[in-house]
């Protein structure tokens, strides 16, 4: 299964352990201690102050009206792809509205919308290769959509029915796809960041032309796993793109209570990682930046950090009322003034690639498609009851077999106490 070319293909950029002794030469003007070898001596006692340097700039290609700022630097995406990107963003936004309401009606248990961040997700996904491996947090529906996750696949997961790849075990929005190389989402924040690093190292060992991409929010970047992952990625030179969605809030916590430095981007340099900040509402800027980051990761076999600035227009989740901690007009202002979907629409219209009529027609047909997938998924049975016990281990242990028998006995004795019919195979599905 595994070819012996592994070692041969191994990248020469892999760091090799240096065993050269480190000595402080006499009269040197810089330090040669093992921990820092390029630092000049200075007699000026001066602390490096975070306020001393200007904030890392934010890359953008077009303004809030969809007008390209530097005419010599136009988006390199053709009509067909641009329209796909637009369509995918709109699909996510409509699906979000429908599913948010359906949670409010109690038809699914939970939901998280990605309003305001569709451009970040779709723009970055469009810059990747289909075989790049993706680890995400939970607000990256646009990534899945762009990769080809179908409406049925979304709905099967949300309704936890028998066609859900996760066998109905996870909360809604915890998507995955083996085919699309989307690793399963877990609720634990930031745990996926070191996973992406390990997976990138695997790609490197295999001599793969692919990278891993890891999405996370500005709040998750405060977790220890963020620190651990970036440090390991840098020291082991792993081809991974870290993609931070900085949307200003972690549930109710604004970024000014999340960190004191210059966002998340400023930390990248400290780990020795190439870093860039981008306007997350500018899909072309996100696309270009991701494309370049991917190129660096592949060709130089090292990590890159992208911080995409945006605004979480929506509530954190269906369990959150964000007006308890932020002003409604702040949100309305963002919706009206700057929105990734509107920005791209203006761009497309100016190009003559899109019109109001086409937009209305698209929205109504998407709504219909989504509702059709919705009702297909809602009618479908849940997975068989035995799936409660499977996949804990590769094979069920003796303990698990005993516990399955125990449940079977209970179901035999008290069948009317359980909702057996909603599961595939009913009682016999155990």
């Amino acid at each position, binding site marked *: 299964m595994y070819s012996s070319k592994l070692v041969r293909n191994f990248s020469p950029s892999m760091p090799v352990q240096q065993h050269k002794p480190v000595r402080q030469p006499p009269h040197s003007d810089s330090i040669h201690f093992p921990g820092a070898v390029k630092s000049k001596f200075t007699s000026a006692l001066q602390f490096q102050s975070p306020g001393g340097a200007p904030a890392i700039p934010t890359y953008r290609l077009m303004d809030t009206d969809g007008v390209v700022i530097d005419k010599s630097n136009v988006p390199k995406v053709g009509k067909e792809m641009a329209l796909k990107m637009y369509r995918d963003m709109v699909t996510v936004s409509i699906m979000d509205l429908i599913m948010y309401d359906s949670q409010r009606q109690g038809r699914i248990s939970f939901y998280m919308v990605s309003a305001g961040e569709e451009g970040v997700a779709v723009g970055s996904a469009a810059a990747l290769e289909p075989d790049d491996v993706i680890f995400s947090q939970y607000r990256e529906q646009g990534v899945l959509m762009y990769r080809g996750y179908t409406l049925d696949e979304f709905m099967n997961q949300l309704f936890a029915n028998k066609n859900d790849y996760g066998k109905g075990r996870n909360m809604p929005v915890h998507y995955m796809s083996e085919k699309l190389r989307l690793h399963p989402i877990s609720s634990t924040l930031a745990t996926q960041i*070191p996973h992406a690093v*390990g997976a990138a190292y695997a790609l490197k060992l295999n001599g793969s032309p692919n990278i891993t991409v890891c999405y996370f929010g500005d709040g998750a970047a405060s977790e220890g796993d963020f620190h*651990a992952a970036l440090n390991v990625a840098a020291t082991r030179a792993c081809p991974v793109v870290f993609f931070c969605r900085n949307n200003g809030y972690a549930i109710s916590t604004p970024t000014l209570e999340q960190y004191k430095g210059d966002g998340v981007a400023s930390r990248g340099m400290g780990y020795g990682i190439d870093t860039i900040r981008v306007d997350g509402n500018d899909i072309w800027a996100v696309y270009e930046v991701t494309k370049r980051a991917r190129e660096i990761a592949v060709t130089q076999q090292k990590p890159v950090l992208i911080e995409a600035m945006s605004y979480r227009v929506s509530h954190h989740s269906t369990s959150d009322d964000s007006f308890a901690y932020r002003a409604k007009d702040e949100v309305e202002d963002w919706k009206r003034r700057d929105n990734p979907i509107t920005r791209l629409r203006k761009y497309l219209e100016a190009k003559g690639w899109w019109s109001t009529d086409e937009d209305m027609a698209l929205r109504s047909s998407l709504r219909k498609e989504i509702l059709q997938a919705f009702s297909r998924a809602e009618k479908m049975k849940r997975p068989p009851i035995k799936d409660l016990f499977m996949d804990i281990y590769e094979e069920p242990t003796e303990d698990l077999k005993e516990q399955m028998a125990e449940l079977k006995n209970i179901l035999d004795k008290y069948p009317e106490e359980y909702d057996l019919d909603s599961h595939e195979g009913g009682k016999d599905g155990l």
Partner: protein
Amino acid sequence: MPVGRRLGVLFRQQLHHHNLLPRAFSLSPSRQSRAYSRPPPSNRKLNLPIDFNASCLLAHSSATALANPELPGDVRASTTTKKMNYFQAVNDALAAILEEDERACIFGEDVAFGGVFRCTTSLSDRFGSQRVFNTPLTEQGIIGFAIGLAAQGHTALPEIQFADYMFPAFDQLHNEASKYRYRAGGAKSFTSGHLVVRMPTGAVGHGALYHSQSPEGFFSGCQGLKVVIPRGPIQAKGLLLEAAQGAHDPVIFMEPKILYRAAVEQVPTAPYRLPIGKAEILKEGKDLTIISYGTMVYICEAAIKHIEKELGVTVELIDLRTIRPWDKKTVEGSVNKTGRCIVVHEASRTGGVGEGVASEVAERCFLRLEAPVCRVTGFDTHVPLAFESFLMPDVAKVFDGAKKTLEY
């Protein structure tokens, strides 16, 4: 943690450079006395130093080693054996895994130069620094990285330098490694099953709070993880190979570090696997069952000599070997035969493995039990430097537990 870690480093360097480990661990009667430890009182009868060279639980000859019925037939018939201590057997197994599986990688803190306990000696030279390498000092990073590597189909063999320091990685082990396959609906390409986390565990005589812990009880509550604690070199090699090459489940592989140099036996040179999830009956008896694992099986062996001689009974000794999932059938069969049962482990009593064993035995053997299940365990304290000998289960405590159980 910085201060604790710094002390840890000092401790490790001491063990390594001053070679205190073998002497401190051999516990032989002739050992030199050191400033911090006095020779035992001369009138001791029970708590004498364990003589590993005389233990029947270790194979001191090639013939004994190859007589092990759990070894595959071809290994028993044709292989040779080599005298190895515990860390050498671990090293031997790791080399065999890397040899056979090109996708296998070993990494952790200080593993490249051979590891602070010498378990990874020469592996980086032999298999390359891309497969055996140091990581930054971050337990959560090591395990998170390992899960990602494993989820791409590689065999990940991370090391946590001391079990005491696994807690920063507990989230990764419990919420990620243990649940990856389950939450992925059993998807073949999304499992953390190709993962074996090695960690030295248990008391060493002077490890105090952070070089002595036995945290297997925490793991025994993690659905989806397997937990293995081998008692000697033969077991360590066979179980490590099974952990890496058998069923694709994440395995916590705990190595009692006091045995690294002390436990020496003839180990088959060919690769072989021993079963995970199966206990081993080390000695048959009919009046009392003693259940233990790791270092404590040697304490139990010594105690059994006194119990049998002074109380005129025969004792059955079981090594659980696997803490999760543990072998309830073997234990049940034994206790239903003897009617009496003691569980011995050095971890604290509350939340320890003994709780689970005692409750299962009570449930499964209720009609045959002639005495309450007795637990001889560490106390519900931390492991303080100067008091370790009072805290650990020892021959006197096991003897006393047996006496009470037999006279109940």
